[in-house]
């Protein structure tokens, strides 16, 4: 294949220019303004961008007076214009004939589109929602350093749950770069680690003011956070995309603080209840042991240790009363006594004596332990461990 005749740079640029300008003679573009500069010549230069791309723009001096607002960085605008190529630099730009701010209708449409898209991806699914830790110790707070929001939330934490320590990352919450800033803050808190929970908050405002929380970059950052996130943006009626993605949506910033931590009054009550439960469990336990000791004494059918039982009961009463003080010590004492009693009761049981080789001698059914109670030809019963025999005295 033969080499094509080389084109001059100008010839190529001329072709690009013709191609582009013919393809895009007039169009409307939506994007965010940045690098807005009103040059001393009177021309307005700016960059129009979204998350992924950007294009240079210019509005010539003659058109500038038709603007109904003062373009500033971060504003969402719709421009009408055509693509032109600036041959000297080999760049293309949009030559803007008119520009308007994005209206409520446009925002609503963008909101619905992003909502639909993220919903289809499953980002709002209930299964994705993580449970909040019941007792967060370190809470990240992402909000504006100015305004009442931080102060109001701080007040809630002080009142409800002073155990929590707060880690605050100030961000812009509206205008140019705010969405980016919020997303970065979420990523930084994840990188920092040690946080149990993150609250993303902003006070009330117009749909435009709250717009950062409807940006995809913020939604993605929330979805990507390893730490559970509570959103508290605007007033009750305001719902943002961030709310849909968050693990918990709170209606306001202060509500976000309230929903994030337990109430200390309820906890103190819980602690009191647990003390009561423990005490009654122990009391029951002691009562049961008291019954056991009674049962044991009864089964030995002996009379003498009754006073021992009384002493035991007294000890158990004492034990119950002074439970909160030197409980263990008291108990050990009582337990040792209880063990001693059991052993003594065993020793007193005649049957254990018989096992050691002794025998019980009865005359007419009564135990007899003295020689002088007996006479020749008396009938005796002799009880051994393994049974009883009858015998008669032949000699004294």
């Amino acid at each position: 294949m033969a080499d094509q005749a080389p084109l001059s740079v100008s010839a190529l640029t001329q072709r690009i220019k013709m191609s582009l300008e013919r393809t895009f003679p007039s169009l409307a573009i939506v994007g965010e303004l940045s690098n807005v500069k009103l040059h001393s010549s009177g021309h307005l230069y700016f960059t129009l961008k979204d998350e992924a791309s950007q294009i240079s723009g210019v509005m010539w001096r003659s058109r500038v007076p038709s603007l109904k607002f003062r373009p500033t960085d971060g504003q969402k605008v719709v421009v009408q214009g055509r693509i032109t190529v600036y041959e000297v630099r080999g760049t293309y730009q949009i030559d803007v004939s008119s520009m308007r701010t994005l209206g409520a209708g446009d925002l609503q449409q963008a909101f619905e589109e992003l909502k639909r898209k993220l919903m289809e991806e499953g980002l709002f699914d209930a299964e994705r929602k993580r449970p909040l830790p019941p007792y967060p110790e370190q809470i990240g707070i992402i909000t504006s350093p100015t305004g009442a929001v931080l102060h109001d939330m701080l007040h809630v934490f002080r009142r409800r749950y002073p155990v929590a320590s707060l880690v605050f990352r100030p961000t812009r919450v509206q205008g140019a770069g705010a969405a980016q800033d919020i997303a970065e803050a979420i990523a930084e808190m994840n990188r920092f680690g040690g946080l149990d929970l993150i609250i993303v908050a902003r006070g009330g405002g117009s749909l435009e003011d709250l717009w950062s929380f409807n940006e995809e970059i913020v939604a993605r950052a929330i979805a990507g956070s390893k730490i559970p996130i509570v959103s508290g943006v605007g007033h009750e009626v305001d719902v943002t995309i961030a709310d849909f993605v968050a693990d918990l949506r709170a209606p306001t910033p202060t509500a976000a603080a309230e929903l994030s931590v337990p109430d200390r009054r309820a906890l103190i009550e819980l602690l009191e209840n647990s003390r009561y439960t423990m005490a009654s469990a122990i009391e029951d336990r002691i009562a049961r042991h008291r019954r056991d000791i009674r049962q044991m004494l009864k089964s030995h059918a002996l009379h003498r240790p009754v006073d021992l039982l009384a002493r035991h009961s007294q000890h158990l009463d004492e034990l119950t009363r002074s439970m909160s003080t030197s409980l263990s010590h008291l108990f050990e004492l009582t337990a040792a006594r209880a063990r001693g009693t059991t052993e003594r009761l065993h020793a007193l049981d005649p049957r254990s004596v018989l096992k050691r080789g002794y025998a019980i001698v009865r005359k007419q059914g009564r135990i007899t332990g003295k020689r002088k109670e007996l006479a020749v030809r008396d009938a005796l019963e002799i009880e051994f461990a393994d049974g009883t025999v009858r015998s008669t005295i032949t000699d004294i």
Partner: protein
Amino acid sequence: MAGKKPAAGKDSFEESLHRLEEIVNQLERGDVPLEDSLRLYEEGIQLSRLCAEKLTRAETTLKRLHKDLDGKLTLMDEEQE
């Protein structure tokens, strides 16, 4: 003044509460020997006191997450009004 990243220690509030809950359950079941249950009771009372004390005495702290030029994240003391 730069602060350090506080780690969730063994004596964290949540762990104390969990331990207390465990003790209450054990005592309620009553399936531990009496001597052990008295030990548990004492531990439980102490834990509940410590927790209550924390709840009444703790003061909310506020730190600022600061990123230095190397991208290193630290905690700074935050002005509190």
